[in-house]
């Protein structure tokens, strides 16, 4: 029984990381109706920037906040300079651009920081009171951070005029322009927020998985799966999807098929769920008009 509990808790801990990446994907999707495949590599690069700041002597929290600012600015610049020209191009051309960005960030990180793994500090003390044998203080902390981000994102989109403007710009750019929304800047803002959210995800993941250029590949995959499982247009759903994927992966490996086919089992289950509910567990169904 303790073994089962243990696996579940361990799954929740990794699920928290997937959930935070899923949240960043939802942010980008809500703002642009595209999924940015380069999200993971951008998050990894931002985490390296944070690492460099800490190495240079900055204490954790100032480095954290400065990294968020840099990531945000970076996201905005990338959108304006690289993504903007592909506004009118086919969707798949944008996908190729994302693949290009992915290669660039991954390769640059390896070139600048080398491939040896690096420790990344955690803001949560090693022996804090909220840690248990099942979950270290950092793992508890990162789940809390993920949930806090979720609340912030949800509140932003639901209750603020800016959030509403962003959602409108993504869903119906033409009408939005007519009511005075600066659609271009909404997209840039969306990218900036998503980049910042990705940076948080990276900085929360790095203490557990260790910082190296290929750190986010697997995490992005599970985050993507989680976001779609929960519904890509629903932040609550995406976060829940992330947690489900984490626990599912652990239980599948531990009890259902054994570790050799863990990835296979997890993905088959996720795809199976999607076939039954094609917009995800909590996504919104779109009924088309002829």
């Amino acid at each position, binding site marked *: 029984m303790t073994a089962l509990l243990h696996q579940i808790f361990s799954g929740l801990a990794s699920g928290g990381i997937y959930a935070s990446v899923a949240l960043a994907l939802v942010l980008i999707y809500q703002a642009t109706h595209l999924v940015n495949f380069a999200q993971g590599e951008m998050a990894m690069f931002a985490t390296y920037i944070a690492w460099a700041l800490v190495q240079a002597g900055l204490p954790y929290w100032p480095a954290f906040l400065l990294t968020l600012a840099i990531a945000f600015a970076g996201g905005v610049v990338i959108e304006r300079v690289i993504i903007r020209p592909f506004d009118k191009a086919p969707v798949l051309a944008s996908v*190729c651009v994302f693949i*290009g960005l992915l290669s660039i960030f*991954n390769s640059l990180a390896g070139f600048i920081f080398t491939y040896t793994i690096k420790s990344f500090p955690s803001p949560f003390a090693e022996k804090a009171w909220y840690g248990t044998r099942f979950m270290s203080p950092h793992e508890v902390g990162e789940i809390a951070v993920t949930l806090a981000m979720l609340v912030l994102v949800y509140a932003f989109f639901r209750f603020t005029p800016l959030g509403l403007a962003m959602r409108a710009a993504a869903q119906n750019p033409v009408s939005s322009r007519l009511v005075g929304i600066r659609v271009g800047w909404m997209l840039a803002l969306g990218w900036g927020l998503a980049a910042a959210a990705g940076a948080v995800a990276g900085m929360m993941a790095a203490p557990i998985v260790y910082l190296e250029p290929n750190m986010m590949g697997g995490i992005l995959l599970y985050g993507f799966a989680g976001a779609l499982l929960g519904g890509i247009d629903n932040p609550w759903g995406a976060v829940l999807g992330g947690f489900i994927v984490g626990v599912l992966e652990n239980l599948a490996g531990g009890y259902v098929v054994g570790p050799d086919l863990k990835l296979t089992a997890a993905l088959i289950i996720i795809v199976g769920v999607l076939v039954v509910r*094609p917009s995800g567990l909590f996504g919104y169904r779109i009924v088309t008009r002829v």
Partner: protein
Amino acid sequence: MTALGYTQAAAPTRQVAGLSVSAWRRIGLGAALALALIVPFWASSYHTFQFTLVVVYAIALMGLNLLTGYNGQISLGHGAFYAIGAYVTAVLVQKAGVPYWATVPVAGLVCLGAGFLFGLPALRLEGLYLALATFALALVTPQILKFKNFATWTGGVQGILMDKPDAPWGLPLDSDQWLYFFCLALALPLFWAARNLVASRTGRAMVAIRDHPVAAATMGVSTALTKSLTFGVSAFYTGIAGSLGGIVVGFVAPDSFSILLSLSFLVGVVVGGLASIWGALFGALFVVFVPNYADQISDLLGERAKALPWAIYGVLLIAFMYLMPTGVVGMLRTAAARLVEGAGRGRSLGKPGA
């Protein structure tokens, strides 16, 4: 341009320099064919090998283009069908002693079935969700290939080595040249068949489903059957490519078929030009040669920049997309249309009172 932005082929009837556009097309085709036949005699063995890979990837990209370009179903997982094709060939050749050329149609048919079976549940998925499902397929396939219970058949993580076939019937060709012609001889009818498929009623149904799925259904197109069949045919092409690829390289292992392969296929299809037959060839040239050029460019930057080629590849890819968002074929079509327009305008200006 449609919702997803595919360009339609212009059908001009004017003439450029005394010949109609279709005549020019035929000349271009003939020249390309002649060039293709000369390559193995003029290029070194190594280059012939590379061009053989171009032919193989072109077949794979043709398959993916049928699905993604003409039918609008995004697949991030065609590497899986390529892998299945390669393994079918390897297992049949090494474990069952089947001659290599006989395994190629078998690989194709196995993938046809696999693609169709995968296409059925995938019917319910659209866009992003289909992308995830195919992505999952690409990730799962290497793991299944490594699975220890299948290792007696698949060779597990060690993979399977194959002998390189020699030219049959005592032809004065070396192994590389023979394989080039073998692949080319298979590619040409496959391309011809694809062209006919696309121009047929089924082809039009595929495109209709891509552009206006609901309208297509109301007009009597059997959406489910067409989509699943397209998946199957697309997998058939890619499976044959995988089989040929396995024969040409001489080795299959789970590590050969990572997610990067599937992503390269997608990049190739987009760079070449969606919904075009020739796009497959240009895409294949990009996939085989551009990473090597990125390597050479990065060499100029010195030895520290050993991993940088992929950053340069990313830059090149983005630049390509910027210059040709509808792919090489899209750009050629636009250029051709402009040429024809210009010629036509020149004509009518020269005829006062016409």
